[in-house]
């Protein structure tokens, strides 16, 4: 069987499974559509939340982000997992006790203010829509590479599948498909990693292999440090950036993770408050299975690739063009060259490809002595690491098919979760909450489905014509969640003193300073060349625009406390609401409100 047929088989079988689940788990009521009837087992919910959370970025990009910078990008590992501690301790149990369907609904009720709810809905929509663009692009890329289908048709197939289980099944259908998608993506991620770890370190557990020893007896990381510094790159395990920026960046990712609505709303689906606590733990177990493997995949892939380009280090000979073109071990390079994500050029015409850091002074001297004229591995997109891994390690064809299905599962599961957050914001918060409060349940369910279908169309259109700033907007999504949503939720639970005016001023202040700081560095509305500062030389000392979410959150807290302390106290019934949210007893009795 050729590779194309294998890929088709794996992707086709996984899609058939998702559609089968969609038919089995149709939603009949708004409670099923928004919260899967609150009957999801905490372990099941943990698995679904893990798939919901781990997007194309986690599956495809994270190992590459770490591989090419080493220690400095540990922020992603700590940030994207540490957020679950905040979620489990500060938000999930109380929001489950509150027992409504959306994050904005809690903000609206707790701060007895339609304005607060509207601000929350707007933040939620901007964060979710910017996030979904990236997922759709991921679907297009995966189809393009593995099934040689045009990105347009790839997106259409993806959209039809998501439509089938998200529009009909709502939260219920999405939950059970996400469980299946988690199984597909974690198998696809782990199998190649285990093989590579075995090949390099003899240890079948990649996370242990990372700190293990290679064949020569030296530590894998020691060897990697030697190899990358030999090529003129920064030492892998050493810190190079600013400590303050790293702390703030990690904190922003943590707070942002805890404030992302599509993750929070998954905790509305479990039966009890105690289940919400356990479920957050299970979520992190399932996420950790991938996140503990990712840094190992990154380091091992970097080692493999550097050794392939320089079999005996830079004092020996670089790999020849002829070998790249004929040796089956290098066949993956030709495959990925076709996608434009990998490119090489024999600049000095010596028949060899010298890969090195041509900005390093040491290597410039060496290059001059040896007649090299610049780095000849001219393009190496870090996103191909995970996808090309099975080919680099010479694994059988079915593993490649599995990785294709895994990448698609990661992108589709996150897209579905985001679409659900968007549709419930439109139908429940905007239509039922603000415009037509008397809508019947049947009509609300219809409205939820129509807004979901509309959201899919918008996501496909944006995925096909991604705005030039798509990659940068992820920072925006995290910034908004960190600066506006997380602090409002936390203060709503932990303080009875914060009132409507305080909460709204706090959210707006956090939002405005964060947007301002991002726009000042990335350009106004991301229009190129309208920025006053750059992330290489930021406005406030070492603080980059991607790390500003944490500061935005502090501004939100400070303004909310200051304004609340000089305005009217919260009414008695709101204090009682907060007190009831703090006590688990009675969670089962919660019903639909508006």
């Amino acid at each position, binding site marked *: 069987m050729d590779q194309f047929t294998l890929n088709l088989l794996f992707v086709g079988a996984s899609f058939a499974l998702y559609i089968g689940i969609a038919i089995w788990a149709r939603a009949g009521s708004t409670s099923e559509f928004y919260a899967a009837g609150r009957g999801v087992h905490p372990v099941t919910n943990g698995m679904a939340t893990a798939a919901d959370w781990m997007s194309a970025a986690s599956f495809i990009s994270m190992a590459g982000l770490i591989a090419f910078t080493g220690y400095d990008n540990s922020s992603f590992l*700590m940030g994207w997992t540490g957020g679950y501690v905040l979620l489990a301790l500060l938000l999930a149990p109380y929001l489950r006790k509150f027992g409504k369907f959306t994050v904005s609904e809690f903000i609206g009720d707790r701060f007895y203010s339609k304005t607060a709810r509207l601000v929350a809905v707007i933040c939620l929509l901007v964060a979710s829509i910017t996030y979904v663009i990236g997922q759709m692009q991921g679907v297009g890329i995966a189809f393009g590479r593995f099934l040689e289908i045009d990105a347009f048709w790839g997106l259409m197939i993806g959209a039809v599948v998501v439509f089938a289980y998200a529009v009909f099944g709502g939260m219920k259908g999405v939950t059970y498909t996400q469980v299946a998608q988690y199984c597909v993506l974690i198998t696809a991620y782990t199998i190649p990693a285990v093989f590579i770890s075995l090949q390099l370190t003899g240890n079948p557990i990649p996370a242990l292999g990372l700190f293990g020893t290679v064949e020569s007896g030296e530590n894998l*990381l020691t060897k990697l440090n030697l190899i990358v510094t030999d090529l003129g790159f920064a030492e892998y395990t050493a*810190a190079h950036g600013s400590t303050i920026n790293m702390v703030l960046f990690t904190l922003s990712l943590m707070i942002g993770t805890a404030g992302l609505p599509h993750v929070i709303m998954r905790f509305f689906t479990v039966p*009890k408050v*105690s289940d919400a*606590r356990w479920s957050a733990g299970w979520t*992190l177990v399932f996420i950790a299975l991938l996140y503990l493997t990712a840094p190992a995949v990154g380091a091992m892939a970097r080692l493999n690739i550097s050794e392939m380009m320089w079999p005996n280090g830079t004092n020996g000979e670089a790999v020849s063009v002829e070998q790249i073109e004929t040796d089956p071990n290098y066949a993956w390079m030709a495959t990925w060259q076709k996608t434009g994500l990998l490119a090489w050029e024999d600049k000095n015409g010596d028949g060899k490809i010298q890969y090195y850091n041509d900005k390093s002074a040491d290597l410039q001297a060496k290059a001059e002595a040896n007649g090299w004229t610049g780095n000849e591995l001219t393009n190496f997109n870090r996103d191909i690491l995970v996808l090309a891994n099975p080919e680099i390690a010479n694994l059988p064809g079915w593993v490649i098919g599995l990785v294709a299905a895994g990448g698609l599962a990661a992108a589709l599961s996150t897209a579905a979760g985001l679409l659900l957050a968007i549709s419930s914001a439109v139908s429940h918060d905007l239509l039922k909450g603000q415009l037509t409060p008397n809508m019947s349940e049947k009509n609300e369910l219809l409205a939820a489905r129509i807004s979901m279908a509309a959201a899919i169309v918008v996501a496909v259109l944006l995925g096909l014509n991604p705005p030039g700033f798509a990659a940068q907007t992820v920072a925006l999504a995290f910034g908004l969640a960190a600066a506006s949503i997380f602090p409002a939720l936390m203060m709503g639970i932990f303080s009875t003193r914060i009132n409507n005016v305080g909460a709204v001023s706090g959210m707006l202040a956090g939002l405005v300073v964060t947007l301002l700081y991002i726009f000042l560095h990335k350009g106004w509305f991301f229009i190129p060349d309208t920025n006053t500062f750059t992330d290489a030389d930021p406005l406030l000392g070492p603080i980059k625009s991607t790390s500003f979410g944490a500061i935005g959150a502090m501004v939100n807290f400070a303004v909310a406390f200051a304004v609340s302390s000089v305005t009217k106290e919260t009414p008695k019934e709101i204090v009682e609401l907060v*007190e009831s949210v703090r006590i*688990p007893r009675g969670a089962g009795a919660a019903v639909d409100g508006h």
Partner: protein
Amino acid sequence: MADQSTTSTNVGEEAKTYWATNIRIISVCLVIWALVSFGFGIILRPALQSISVGGTDLGFWFAQQGSILVFLALIFFYAWRMNKLDREHGVDEE
């Protein structure tokens, strides 16, 4: 154990102790949460340079693996401790 028939002031007191204990548990957990990630993984890494782990130092391990494992332990500890506290104060779900 709380008596279901206690008067409303007692229930209020009970709720206050329950919440104060919860805040104390959360604070302890968050101190550990910050210590392993921002502390051992980033700020205190130079101080831990001498402790070597598999070809690098302890701070690198905390940044790439250790903190995730501690986060897991914290969430499960909190869930176990709070479910116990709920029962002690009679506020668990029937």
